[in-house]
């Protein structure tokens, strides 16, 4: 499978991919739009445009889909930063630090950080995949239900991290989210649970209405308290914003290149696992980033690392999702599944032989991804300064706009008016939560990860015929358990150490002052 991977082949591959710029650039802009509007996922758009992609040649069709997929991931972060409305669940961790930055008038910096970390994260993981695809594909064989339970718990433990501000409220919000997430028919016998008689809830709580309600609708009702989203200082900063601010965002990200590297690798590994997705990756990356940060107390206040982590991770997922598809023929997500349809339509069989029979198609998918990220950096970065001006628009205009377009967006995935009402209900919950100090992100984590955790947990129990100890039955799983416990304990240990050092320092200063006084 590694046969053609020589330097000359790579150069040839990239040269070849660059000739498709005329497909990539329009797909980038299309992807940015569908990514930014809740309900308009890349997968849905690709399905709608399937007749077009099937009419194209195989390479053109695949490159179009890859470019749209990558750019939609980046697009989802833009409204998350500017107006606290994540375009997809994969960007749900982005506003935790992105939105506070925008409110402080650092919109251009925040967007630049998002663009640079997304581009670098996506580019880096794509290059890694190009060289190490056979090894990365092995992850699929090693991570099963048992290990996935621990991976899910990594994401869910972010609730505890968020709860650090107010433990009780954080935990109540998180567990409330987990309960809401378990609405729907159970996975084994399809028994309806907590559906209140609504048939529309038998498949579980749809994510987009939850996302729209908790973030967008509650935000719209919240921001009308002021004339602008921006703080007073923020308004001054935004009025005086220059290109230097945009470049400062890029510079700050490049200074933290190592942070981009390891958080995008989290995205890559999680992306390889079929069924896992960008939402899990970004929550896990954010949680890990905070755990190992020297300044964890700054997270949630507009911290650069808190924005880099989810953005690098959710773009790291994109290349990972396609690995199982191309190497073993298992689509890692909805977009990958549609790509499989297109490849099969053109008579291409996915699997190891693809790399020998059609290397330009197999490796071309990833080189298209790399080229998309490069072209995306060139086309979107200059727009950061202008896009951030959205934050200067009066709330008189922006609040109704958010309500109208996001509510209709929640209708799109399933076509039920019920989902719009559901979004409004979540909006009310979100509004009450915001006004009374409960974190909406904690509720959302529960809604997103709760059903997944239950699914993996039941699968593991089924396989072990009901033996609960199955969750400690795998070596990799046990290593992950240790890592999970460490990542939960480390912040407390660090905090304790910091307080102890501060106390000693104060004691030392006091003694010094006392001695000085005696001498004097």
């Amino acid at each position: 499978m590694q046969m053609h991977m020589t330097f000359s082949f790579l150069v040839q591959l990239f040269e070849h991919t660059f000739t498709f710029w005329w497909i990539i650039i329009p797909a980038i802009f299309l992807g940015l739009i569908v990514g930014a509007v809740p309900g308009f996922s890349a997968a849905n758009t690709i399905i709608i445009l399937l007749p077009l992609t099937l009419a194209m040649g195989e390479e053109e069709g695949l490159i179009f889909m890859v470019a749209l997929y990558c750019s939609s991931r980046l697009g989802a972060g833009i409204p998350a930063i500017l107006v606290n409305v994540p375009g997809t669940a994969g960007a749900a961790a982005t506003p935790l630090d992105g939105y506070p930055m925008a409110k402080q008038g650092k919109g251009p910096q925040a967007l630049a950080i998002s663009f640079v970390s997304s581009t670098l994260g996506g580019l880096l993981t794509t290059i890694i995949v190009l060289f190490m695809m056979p090894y990365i594909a092995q992850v699929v064989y090693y991570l099963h239900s048992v290990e996935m339970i621990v991976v899910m718990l990594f994401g869910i433990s972010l609730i505890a991290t968020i709860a650090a501000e107010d433990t009780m409220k954080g935990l109540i919000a998180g567990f409330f989210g987990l309960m809401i997430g378990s609405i729907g028919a159970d996975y084994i016998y399809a028994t309806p649970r907590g559906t209140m008689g609504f048939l529309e809830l038998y498949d579980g709580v749809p994510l987009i209405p939850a996302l729209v309600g908790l973030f967008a609708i509650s935000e719209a009702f919240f921001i009308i308290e002021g004339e602008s989203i921006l703080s007073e200082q923020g308004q001054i900063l935004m009025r005086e914003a220059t290109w230097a601010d945009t470049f400062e965002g890029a510079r700050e990200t490049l200074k933290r290149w190592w942070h981009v590297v390891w958080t995008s690798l989290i995205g890559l590994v999680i992306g390889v696992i079929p069924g896992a997705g960008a939402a899990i990756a970004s929550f896990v990356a954010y949680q890990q980033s905070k755990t190992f940060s020297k300044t964890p107390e700054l997270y949630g206040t507009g911290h650069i690392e808190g924005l880099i982590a989810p953005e690098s991770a959710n773009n790291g997922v994109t290349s990972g999702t396609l690995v199982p598809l191309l190497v073993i023929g298992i689509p890692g997500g909805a977009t990958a599944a549609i790509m499989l349809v297109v490849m099969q339509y053109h008579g291409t069989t996915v699997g190891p032989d693809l790399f020998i029979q059609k290397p330009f198609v197999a490796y071309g998918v990833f080189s298209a991804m790399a080229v998309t990220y490069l072209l995306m950096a060139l086309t979107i970065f200059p727009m950061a300064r202008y896009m951030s001006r959205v934050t200067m628009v009066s709330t008189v205009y922006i609040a109704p706009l958010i309500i109208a377009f996001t509510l209709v967006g929640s209708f799109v995935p399933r076509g039920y008016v019920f989902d719009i009402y559901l979004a409004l209900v979540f909006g009310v919950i979100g509004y009450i939560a915001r006004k009374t100090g409960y974190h909406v992100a904690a509720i959302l984590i529960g809604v997103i990860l709760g059903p997944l955790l239950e699914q993996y947990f039941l699968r593991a129990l089924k396989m072990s015929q009901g033996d609960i100890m199955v969750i400690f039955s795998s070596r990799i799983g046990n290593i992950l358990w240790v890592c999970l416990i460490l990542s939960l304990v480390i912040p407390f240990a660090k905090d304790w150490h910091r307080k102890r050092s501060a106390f000693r320092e104060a004691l030392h200063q006091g003694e010094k002052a006392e001695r000085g006084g005696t001498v004097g």
Partner: protein
Amino acid sequence: MSSEPESHSGEKPSIGGDLIIPVAAILFTLYYFYSIIGAPWTAQVSAFFNGSILLILCAIFIITAVVKVARRHATFRFDTLVEPISILPKRIFLFLLTLGYIACLDWAGFTITTFVFLALAMLLLSGRERKNKRVIFILSGALAIGGYLLFVVAFERQFPEGPFEHAVKALIKAMGGG
């Protein structure tokens, strides 16, 4: 979003609003438990685990709140939820407008309903400064038509259809485009 919200400086914090989420969580969890009585264990295990923890957390939170109020360290008022009071009428009307928007979407269609909702909501929020009425109507119309062109025409999404959408469809058909 402080954990101990104080409605007015010097006054006791109002914690009535803080209890809404825990009370809602308790009611929902009890209903959820009721809905899975007699269900197979696979349908119960996760819910009973999460639900029990949630009930314990909520109970601790509510008891703590009651103790605070009993010791006169806080009050059961809902100030944090409704403040600033000056915005409250706008907020209630915006909520009613939103409800109306959803109710009308299904029969009046995306474009007309969105235009009416945007215009009314913007007029409502602009308050007494209605000097930009023309801007509001032009903007609302442009956004509604823009949304229709982008999402319905370009992306072919199934948005709720009404008289406008039907008329455009009929027009296109009459022109031989459909």
